[in-house]
């Protein structure tokens, strides 16, 4: 096996349990949620009840048109929970492979060998990307199978676009974690700041539209870049994918360069 391949395969091997449980968790969430769709299908009572809620609550949790397939999936899964879980998975996996490994003295061991630090960190970032791909495929397959089982009629292309946007949003937060770990390798900082910024992004995208003053600033949130075009019901413009992927690449490079320049020591 070539050296570069091993620098990806090793971390993947180390993450295999984590990837399995994140996949099971997300697939389980999707399966259980969609299983309830027959009870909600075309229910005007639920729609009427939701319309009684304050506009802010409907906006924040994506509850509009809850009786339609797209509204049901958005409100229950793709407005908050699935994207947030993708972000959390990416941040946790990156944290384990960077700041966690450094605190455990395993990065120090690698950096004392004839290995370029950039190779090591990029290998780990790529391994996390592959791990996210596995979680994405598990989520998408479960969603498609459960849609058929529960007779939830939704455009598969738009569904896959939405799940891909969730994965890219996760990758963006994972790359943010790479940058934080590159600048300061403290596992608690990477987890806390990474998850805090993910939640802040959601709040900006979900709640700022309720205020005329704040509404223009919702475009600062990657959640808005990802889901501002209502991907479950409308075709996704290509720039939305790029707006998540390009900063992810840049943030990863920032983290790689930062760790190349700074001291490395076991915590």
């Amino acid at each position, binding site marked *: 096996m070539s*050296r570069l391949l091993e620098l990806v395969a090793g971390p993947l091997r*180390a993450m295999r349990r984590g990837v399995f449980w994140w996949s099971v968790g997300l697939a389980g969430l999707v399966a259980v949620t969609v299983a309830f769709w027959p009870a909600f299908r075309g229910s005007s009572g639920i729609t009427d009840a939701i319309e009684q809620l304050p506009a802010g609550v409907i906006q924040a949790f994506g509850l509009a048109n809850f009786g339609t397939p797209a509204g049901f999936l958005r409100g229950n899964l793709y407005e908050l929970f699935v994207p947030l879980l993708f972000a959390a998975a990416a941040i946790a996996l990156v944290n384990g492979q960077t700041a966690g490994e450094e605190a455990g003295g*395993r990065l120090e061991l690698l950096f*004392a060998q*004839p290995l*370029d630090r950039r190779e090591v960190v990029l290998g780990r970032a790529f391994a996390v990307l592959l791990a996210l791909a596995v979680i994405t495929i598990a989520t998408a397959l479960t969603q498609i199978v459960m849609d058929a089982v529960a007779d939830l009629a939704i455009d598969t292309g738009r569904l896959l676009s939405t799940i891909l946007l969730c994965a890219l949003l996760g990758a963006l937060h994972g790359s943010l974690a790479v940058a934080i770990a590159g600048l300061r390798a403290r596992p608690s900082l990477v987890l806390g700041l990474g998850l805090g910024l993910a939640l802040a992004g959601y709040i900006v995208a979900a709640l700022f539209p309720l205020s005329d003053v704040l509404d223009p600033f919702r475009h600062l949130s990657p959640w808005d870049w990802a889901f501002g075009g209502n991907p479950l019901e409308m075709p996704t413009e290509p720039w939305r994918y790029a707006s998540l992927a390009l900063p992810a690449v840049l943030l990863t490079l920032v983290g790689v360069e930062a760790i190349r320049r700074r*001291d490395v*020591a076991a915590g």
Partner: protein
Amino acid sequence: MQSSPTTPEAVRFRGVTRRFGDVRALDAVDVSISTGETVAVLGPNGAGKTTAIGLILGLTAPTAGSVETLGQSPSSAVSSGRVGAMLQASGLPSYVRVAELLEFTRRLYPEPLALSAILERAGLTPLRDRRIDQISGGEAQRLRFAMAIAGNPDLVILDEPTVAMDVETRRSFWADMRRSASEGRTILFATHYLEEADQVADRVLVLDRGTIVADGSGSAIRGRVHARTIRFDLPGADAEMLAGVAGVTAMDIHGDQVKLTSNDADETVHSIYAAGLAVRNIEVTGAGLEEAFLALTDPDRSQTETNR
């Protein structure tokens, strides 16, 4: 060993200072280590030993001054595969087997040892297929050593290499290091075991509070200290009374056995007999490296240990 051109200096520190916040881990250190030397670095906790090793390996950058490893920047020397390191706090990946990790490591170097030779030298042949999360602390330490020698490096850096090793493993480890040194390798090790430094190293560097307080052979360092050790048996030894005997700077009492460290052995022995103490089996020897180390790193120390 690599066939690349050798340099007369394996390690060179020029005015190296390394600060961590307000703490000076190393303070304007100037030192040179020639190729082929076996050098022990001694020092109490926090003396700067691990920082110095991190600087030699390029894991840490100096705040001021410069470090050269094998005539180049530390990171270049490590990248070239001429340096092997065994680090004190380094973790090991838990998901691979011993032979897999060593095979990965050896292939990073341009002229590595054969896998079977590495396993043999580290005493890991019976463990080659064992998962790393199933080996003991001593075995993990041998694995770290195996990783350090896997690339057949010119310079071997060892940070507390024999911690957690049993006596037999420790003996074979140092036998292997002596053989490596006789082949012309430079070996630099930090240790808390003073007898190892005394027995293995051609040269001992004593670090204290970030500065080198002694540099020479073990015997030369012992010679810098005028202290002598006086041992005798004394039933019912009174620590308070013995502490007041002329010349005594430290004392260790275990049951009836007393060990005094004195900066004037003649005066101390005279005072003991003048006090009418019923001492038996009295023996006066030169200071060991331990006494020298204590005197160099904490000259004001007056230590009394009683264990009855």
